[in-house]
């Protein structure tokens, strides 16, 4: 692969960074640390503490759901993450993939805290925190694509 174009045009894009590892608690913490490190060094995100926090939380919830629901303790596997910034319109894209059980997020109901519902805030938060959340499942691979549109000041 070749970064020529990027360095030439000084587009505020980010060549994709991949991170993958086992779906467990330790790896979730590692993902959290790495996201912070990646975003701190991503030109268009610098100094956007709230934005970084929100994306970090959305990715964290997505990964937690994979550990809790897509895989089980008996039948676990890897989580693959791909972080990129692409232009026109400028957007941060995080792909999160697993090879566990698929599901249909459109069938999950919005949580109701007024009825003191204890669980079920994860998916809702992900959708509220990102601009676009697409889920697809094909060939045994489930994939979330989380998108946040960015404005350059």
């Amino acid at each position, binding site marked *: 692969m070749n970064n020529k174009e990027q360095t030439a045009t000084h587009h505020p894009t980010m060549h994709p960074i991949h991170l993958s590892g086992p779906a467990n*608690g330790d790896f*979730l*913490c590692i993902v959290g640390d790495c996201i912070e490190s990646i975003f701190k060094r991503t030109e268009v995100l610098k100094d956007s*503490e*709230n934005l970084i*926090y*929100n994306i970090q*939380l959305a990715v*964290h*919830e997505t990964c*937690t759901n994979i550990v809790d629901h897509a895989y089980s303790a008996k039948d676990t596997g890897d989580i693959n993450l791909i972080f990129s910034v692409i232009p026109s319109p400028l957007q941060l894209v995080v792909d999160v993939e697993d090879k566990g059980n698929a599901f249909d997020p459109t069938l999950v109901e919005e*949580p109701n*805290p*007024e009825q*003191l*519902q*204890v*669980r*079920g*805030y*994860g998916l*809702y*938060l992900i959708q*509220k*925190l990102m601009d676009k959340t697409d889920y697809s499942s094909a060939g045994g691979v489930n994939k979330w694509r989380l998108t946040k549109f960015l404005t350059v000041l």
Partner: protein
Amino acid sequence: MYFQVQDIVSKVSVVKLNEKIDAVSAPQIKEKFNEMISDGVYQFVLDLSQVPFMDSAGLAALVSLLKQARQENGDVKLVAPQNESAMRILKLTKFDRVFDMANTAESAVALF
């Protein structure tokens, strides 16, 4: 995690949490809550002012405590997190409508 527990005369217990409330810390926090409930504490002020991060497992721990407390005719009031993003999570999930909130532990205690 270090829990600073302070009993106010009217039997409201103020629990100050000062770390992330997430999937990692939630089990420990829940255990502490259960212990206090067993000891007959049903009126809680959770001081979240210094909490830097909260996820859905953290939210679950809060609602779960509220549910247990209300079953015993108690309640849970919150001191709002100073971290803007953590506060935003409470608003996004409408937790600010379910929990009474205040900006200091004193005013949260006064809500009882």
